[in-house]
C-alpha cells in the first residue's frame, strides 16, 4: 500500500488548516454561502436532508486495517455508529456536525486519509478495479498510476474550477470491474500489439446521470511517461470548451457528443503537441517510487488447491455456499480474494457498523496482509487470503452479520441513499432494494438464477448506476407518488451498455413482482449455463417487454 512521504503528510495537514480557516471566514461573513459552498464540497462536506454529510476518499478503494479502525472510531464518536460505502469506493457519514468536521479531518490525516475532492467541480477520487494486484487477468496493477493521478489532480491550480465534476477510473485487467466506460476518463493499461510495451488506452466522455453515455477511445496507446501531459491536454480542452451555460450539459460527455469524438480527439492531440512533456510529466523514477509500495506481499508457497478448504466445504453446506459465491481466484496458488457482502437481506446496501468495520479490520490484519478493498458494488474485499484460513474467516464473519453468500447474485444490489437521506432524491431506493432482497431471500433460488446485477437510483442523477445494471431501477416522482422505471440489458463491464426501458413506471409495491416476471422470462429462455445478461443479449427485449406488459395489465 502507498504510504505518505513528508510532502503528502504536510499537504493533508495544510488542507485541514485551510479548511478550518475557510469555515472561520464563512462564519465571520467574509465568504458568502455561495462562495463557501464549493470550498466545503471540495472537502467532501454536503448539506443533506437531515444533516451534513461527510464523504471520505478511499483512493482506488484500498484501505489498511488501521485506516478501517479509524473510520470505525469516527463513526462511533461523531456519527451514529455506522457508515455507508459508495459506488465510488468512498465512505459517507450521514450525521456529522459541521463543527466536528475539522477534528474528523485531523483524525483522518493521522492515518493518511482525507476528504479532498470527493465532491465539487474538480477531478474526483480516482477509482480502480477492486481486484487490482490480485486478478489473474491483469496486465499490471493500476493503483500506482491512480496514486500518481491522485497527487497530480490534488489542488490543481488550473483544473479546480471545471464546468462540472470529473471522474477518472482505471483498470489493468482484461475484464473491466471498474466501470471505466462510464467515467469522464477511463484508463486501461494495455500492451502494445507490436512492441509489447505497456501503456494506456484512454477513453473520454463516459458518464451516467440524466444523459448516460459510454466513453469513446481517444487514444489507443499512450506511452506511460506521457500520461500527465496528455491528461493536462484533455483537461485544458474541457476547461475551456465545456459548456457552462447549463449544468446538465456541462459534463465532458456532452462536449464530446456535441463536437464529435474525432474533433475532440484532434483538439486534445493539438494541445498535447504544444506541451513540453518533460516540464509537465512525472519522472519514470517517480512512478517507480510509487510502484514499489504496491509490490506483491510475501505469499507463502502453497499447493494450488487447499485440502483444508475442500474438507470444510464438504462438511458444512452453509460455508460451502458462501465459498461458492464470495471467493475470487487469486494469482498466487493457494490464495483467494474474499468478498465480504454488505448486502445482508433487509438492511441498507453498503452500510457497515463501526463494530463490523473492526471485525473486518481484524481479519485483514490477521489473514490478508493488513489490506482491504472497497468495491464499486458497495462490498468489502479481503484481497489476499490463504485458502486454508477461509473457514476461520467465515466463522468470524457469521456472528458479525457479514457472511451473506450473495456476491454477484440478485440480492447483491447496488442502491444509492435515495429519499432516506438525499436532498435531491425523487423516490426511495433503500426500501426497494430491501423488498427485492426479501422476495429472493431463498439461497437455492439465488444460486439457480446466478449472476444478476440489480442497480437502483433514487433520482435521475444515477448515483446507483441503474443505467448499467442488468436490471436497472430508477425512482421518479409522478404527481406526488413514487414511480419506478425499469430498464434491462445494461452492462458495467468491458461490454458496457446502457439499459433500455421496459415499459411504464410502476408503484413501489409492484417492483418485486416485476423483477420476478423478468427473472421468469430468463429462466424460461436460457440455454444451459447462460448468464442472465447473455440471455438478454441473445433473445432481445421483446419477451421481457411482453411479460412486463401483462404485469401492468394485471395491475390495472
Amino acid at each position, binding site marked *: 500500500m502507498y504510504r505518505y512521504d513528508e510532502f503528502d503528510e504536510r499537504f493533508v495537514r495544510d488542507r485541514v488548516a485551510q479548511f478550518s480557516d475557510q469555515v472561520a471566514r464563512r462564519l465571520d461573513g467574509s*465568504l458568502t454561502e455561495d462562495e463557501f459552498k464549493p470550498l466545503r464540497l471540495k472537502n467532501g462536506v454536503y448539506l443533506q436532508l437531515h444533516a451534513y454529510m461527510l464523504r471520505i476518499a478511499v483512493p482506488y478503494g484500498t484501505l489498511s486495517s488501521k485506516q478501517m479502525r479509524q473510520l470505525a472510531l469516527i463513526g462511533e464518536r461523531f456519527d451514529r455508529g455506522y457508515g455507508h460505502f459508495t459506488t465510488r469506493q468512498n465512505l459517507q457519514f450521514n450525521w456529522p456536525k459541521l463543527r466536528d468536521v475539522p477534528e474528523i479531518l485531523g483524525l483522518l490525516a493521522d492515518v493518511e486519509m482525507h476528504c479532498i475532492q470527493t465532491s465539487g467541480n474538480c477531478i474526483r477520487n480516482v477509482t480502480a478495479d477492486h481486484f487490482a494486484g490480485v486478478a489473474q487477468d491483469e496486465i499490471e496493477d493500476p493503483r500506482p498510476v491512480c496514486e500518481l493521478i491522485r497527487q497530480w489532480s490534488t489542488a490543481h*491550480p488550473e483544473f479546480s474550477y471545471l464546468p462540472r465534476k470529473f471522474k477518472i477510473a482505471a483498470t489493468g485487467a482484461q475484464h473491466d470491474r471498474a466501470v471505466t466506460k462510464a467515467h469522464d476518463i477511463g484508463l486501461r493499461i494495455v500492451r502494445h500489439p507490436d512492441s509489447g510495451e505497456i501503456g494506456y488506452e484512454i477513453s473520454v466522455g463516459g458518464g451516467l446521470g440524466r444523459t448516460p453515455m459510454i466513453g469513446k477511445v481517444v487514444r489507443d496507446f499512450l506511452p506511460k511517461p506521457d500520461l500527465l501531459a496528455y491528461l493536462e491536454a484533455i483537461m485544458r480542452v474541457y*476547461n475551456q470548451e465545456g459548456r457552462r451555460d447549463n449544468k446538465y450539459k456541462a459534463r465532458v460527455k456532452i462536449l464530446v457528443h456535441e463536437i464529435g469524438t474525432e474533433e475532440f480527439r484532434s483538439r486534445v492531440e493539438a494541445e498535447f503537441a504544444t506541451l513540453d512533456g518533460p516540464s509537465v510529466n512525472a519522472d519514470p523514477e517517480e512512478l517507480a517510487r510509487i510502484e514499489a509500495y504496491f509490490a506483491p506481499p510475501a505469499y507463502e508457497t502453497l499447493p494450488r488447491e487447499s485440502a483444508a478448504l475442500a474438507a470444510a466445504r464438504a462438511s458444512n453446506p452453509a460455508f460451502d455456499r458462501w465459498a461458492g459465491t464470495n471467493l475470487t481466484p487469486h494469482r498466487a496458488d493457494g490464495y483467494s480474494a474474499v468478498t465480504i457482502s454488505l448486502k445482508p437481506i433487509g438492511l441498507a446496501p453498503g452500510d457497515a457498523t463501526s463494530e463490523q468495520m473492526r471485525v473486518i479490520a481484524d481479519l485483514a490484519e490477521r489473514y490478508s496482509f493488513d489490506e482491504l478493498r472497497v468495491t464499486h458494488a458497495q462490498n468489502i474485499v479481503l484481497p489476499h487470503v490463504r485458502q486454508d484460513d477461509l473457514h476461520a474467516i467465515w466463522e468470524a464473519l457469521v456472528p458479525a452479520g457479514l457472511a451473506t453468500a450473495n456476491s454477484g447474485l440478485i440480492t447483491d444490489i447496488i442502491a444509492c441513499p435515495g429519499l432516506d437521506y438525499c436532498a435531491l432524491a425523487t423516490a426511495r431506493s433503500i426500501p426497494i432494494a430491501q423488498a427485492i432482497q426479501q422476495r429472493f431471500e431463498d439461497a437455492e433460488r439465488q444460486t439457480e438464477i446466478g449472476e444478476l446485477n440489480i442497480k437502483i437510483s433514487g433520482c435521475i442523477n444515477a448515483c446507483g448506476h441503474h443505467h448499467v445494471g442488468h436490471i436497472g431501477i430508477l425512482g421518479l416522482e409522478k404527481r406526488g407518488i413514487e414511480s419506478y422505471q425499469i430498464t434491462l440489458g445494461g452492462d458495467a463491464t468491458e461490454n458496457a451498455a446502457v439499459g433500455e426501458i421496459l415499459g411504464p413506471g410502476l408503484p413501489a409495491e409492484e417492483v418485486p413482482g416485476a423483477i420476478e416476471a423478468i427473472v421468469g422470462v430468463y429462466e424460461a429462455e436460457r440455454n444451459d449455463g447462460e448468464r442472465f445478461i447473455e440471455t438478454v443479449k441473445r433473445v432481445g427485449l421483446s419477451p421481457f417487454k411482453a411479460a412486463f406488459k401483462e404485469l401492468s395489465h394485471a395491475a390495472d
Partner: protein
Amino acid sequence: MLLIDREGSATEAWTRADGAAIGNLSHALVGWDALPEALDQKSSDQKIGVLVPNSLPSEALKPFFDQLALVAIGFPAFADGRGFSLAKVLRREGFRGTLRASGPLIPDQFDYAIACGFDEIELPEASASRQSALQWQQARGRLSRTYQRGYTRDGNILDRRRLARAAANSPAG
C-alpha cells in the same frame, strides 16, 4: 475596487477608456472590440491594456502581444475557471506583459491564479468590502507545497522528490 498583487494591495495605474477613445491616457485599458482602433491611435509613450472575455481563443490575441502592456481576463464568476486556462496558454504562447484576473475571485484562488501566470487580481467592490487585502495575503502559501509541475510556483513536490533522489544517488562527501 481593490487591486491586489503578490505584495498586497496595489495602486491602479490603468484608466478604462470609453470605447477606443484613449486620448492621452498614459495607461489606457480598452475592451476587446475596441482594441484595433485603440492601437491605431496609440502614441509611442502610451501603454495599452485590453480586457478580454475568458472565452477568447488565445490565437486571436497573439498578434497583439508586442503592443500590449496588460491583458485583463474577465472572470464572470469565481467558479468559472476558464480564465485559469486562458492565462496559462497566453503565457505559453509568449505573452510577457502584466496578466490581470478581473472579477469576483476569492482569496482561496490567489495561489492558483499566480501559478497559472497572473500577476494581479482586480476585485469588484462587493467582494473587496468583505475580503481584505490581508485575507488575500494570508491565503498565499496556505498549501505550502503542491504537486503539479509546469506552473509558476516554486518547489513543486515532483521537483522536490527529484532533488531528493539526486542527492541520495550522488556519492557522499
